[in-house]
């Protein structure tokens, strides 16, 4: 029975992203303080915490999306397989092909379903001809559990799908560039419970190929979906450990207060 649960074998997996003493400043506001965390390969890591604790901010640092905010400054090291992603030699555009992102509100491009998924591979020049592109589109839509629903209408606009389907389309789009890590910022908060459960099941399946980091304000979702959980509070990383451990016997009293609903 133990072999059915891969999550207990986390100690044998490699480290994909490692943050060392990471700090984030918005102007003079010290938003993220001294975060040390390791994202392991082929694992789902959840960031939980009350509103404003900095979990989304930290997530967006991992693929340098915070570069679009002029007042944001990152210090410390964030390493992707040993290389500092904030090094001056790193091109954020190239980085984002290796670290994909899915956002809170499903945001497919107002193009056809096919073009949505094909956009990433096209601009990064990942394919040589149309046949290869077709293949990538089909395989990504299959992995996102969307192929059967849309295979007859690939030319239909992406915005015409239901909420859950749109989010799965965004996931397909994000994995089309074969990233190594998939960042998800509250991906289910705009979805109904059935669509949420479908996306969570999808994340569980994707786990075998990518590392996934998911920010969620629902502790139950973190409990269901992740193998490791990090609890953020007021910009600090309070506790980080195996999910079952955190939810049955957390070490830090602040963690226990939050997950049992005693503090906001």
């Amino acid at each position, binding site marked *: 029975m133990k072999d059915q649960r891969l999550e207990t074998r986390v100690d044998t997996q490699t480290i994909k992203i490692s943050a060392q003493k990471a700090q984030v400043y918005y102007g003079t506001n010290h938003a993220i303080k001294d975060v040390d965390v390791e994202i392991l390969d082929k694992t789902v890591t959840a960031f939980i915490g009350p509103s404003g604790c900095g979990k989304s901010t930290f997530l967006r640092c991992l693929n340098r999306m915070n570069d679009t905010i002029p007042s944001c400054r990152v210090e410390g090291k964030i390493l992707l397989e040993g290389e500092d992603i904030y090094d001056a030699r790193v091109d954020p555009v190239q980085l984002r092909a290796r670290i994909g992102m899915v956002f809170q509100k499903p*945001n497919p491009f107002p193009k056809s379903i096919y073009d949505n998924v094909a*956009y990433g591979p096209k601009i990064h020049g990942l394919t040589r001809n149309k046949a290869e592109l077709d293949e990538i589109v089909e395989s990504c839509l299959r992995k996102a559990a969307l192929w059967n629903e849309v295979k007859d209408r690939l030319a239909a606009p992406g915005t015409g799908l239901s909420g859950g389907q749109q989010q799965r389309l965004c996931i397909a*789009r994000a994995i089309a560039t074969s990233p190594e890590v998939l960042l998800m910022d509250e991906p289910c908060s705009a979805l109904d419970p059935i669509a949420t459960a479908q996306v969570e099941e999808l994340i569980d399946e994707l786990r075998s190929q990518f590392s996934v980091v998911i920010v969620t304000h629902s502790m139950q979702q973190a409990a269901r979906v992740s193998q490791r959980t990090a609890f953020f509070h007021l910009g600090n990383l309070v506790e980080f450990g195996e999910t079952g451990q955190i939810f049955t016997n957390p070490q830090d009293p602040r963690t226990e207060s939050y997950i049992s609903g005693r503090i906001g």
Partner: protein
Amino acid sequence: MTATPRISLFAQDTRTKRRNAAEARFRSYGLAAIVLALLALVWLLISIFSGGLPAFKQSFLTFPVTLEESVLDKGGKRDPAIMAKATTVTYAKVLAKALEAEVAAKGLETKLKTKDLTKMISEESPATLRDRVLADPSLIGQTIQVSVLASGRIDGYYKGRVTMESAAKDKNTSPEQLALADQLKAAGVLTMQFNSGFLTMPDASDKRPEAAGLGVAIIGSLYMMVVVLVLALPIGVAASVYLEEFAPKNRITDLIEVNIANLAAVPSIVYGILGLAIFINFAGLPQSAPIVGGLVLTLMTLPRIIIPTRAALKAVPPSIRDAALGVGASNLQTITHHVLPLAMPGILTGTIIGLAQALGETAPLLLIGMVAFVRDFPGAPPEGLFDPAAALPVQIYNWTQRGDPGFVERASGAIIVLLVFLIAMNAVAIYLRRKFERRW
């Protein structure tokens, strides 16, 4: 606690009554304002259309003309140089004689002599016929059916400007001419036809309102619009994109933005003075040319394109930008592949409205000299952009300054043409906005 007397819901207390009365009054004010505005609009339209629609109908005299070689081609060899020696005076006589013959042929009685009959035909017509013959010398020797413009006074008679009484005092016409005109009309020689020449012929001199047309003005306006479109759209969009996406958010950028907003409010005549100083005096471009008019209007239209373009760019939801960046698109790719296509309806609408405004601007064009009397059509672009031309609004202004009452109708007709263009452009803008708006 004493119980307050229970008030029925069905009864209105005084406060409610006063509130409802105030609301009713406000609504009636609004309605009155709208009615007033509509009345003004209706009055405007009625006065324009009643004054201008007659310009589209013109009196024509249709009769056969024998083109005698002995008169028109003394050399006999269809040599253009020799044929050119037959002037418009000659042709005028030919026309008058032919008309006389037609009058006799139709058995109409009149006391008028050939000289008087000349006055019934527009002074423009001999030139028209001469151009026709010189273009096609084989016509000489034949008898052709010719349809010429009747004179301005005759035309005015049928449009109510000239009456028998006023004709008696008028040196350009006489009651006998009018009587003959009636007879010719009854005989079918004089007809009122749709005057396509109003749109195609160039301007005519003071005495010939019947021959005056908008041809040169329309071409001139068209050239200027092309110049404005080709210059203002790319520059405006590029400036907006830079300001919105690339410019750092500091004081200098704020300053630029404030100035652009102010430029949109600058009176257009100031742009005329600017154009005069830079394009004509400094750069030495020819006066009255569409290129100069186009450049001046471009300067004027730029802020009016930049402002709606920026609004359209701002209206693109940041989630689309985030999505593009998240997939690994660069800033430029995000803008060209995603933001601009989504902002395009707003940009197009802003551009078309800016163009429509530019089409109707008169003051700057007056200052750069486009008020001159231009008879020749400007050539094909790009050289044609440097030939002198007129513009629709300026032509209207010009015609209102002329003495002959026939030009009043012309000016009103030109206003109608201008309005049609403006409405068409606005309709295109609305259509584009509706068509693209539904997409996301």
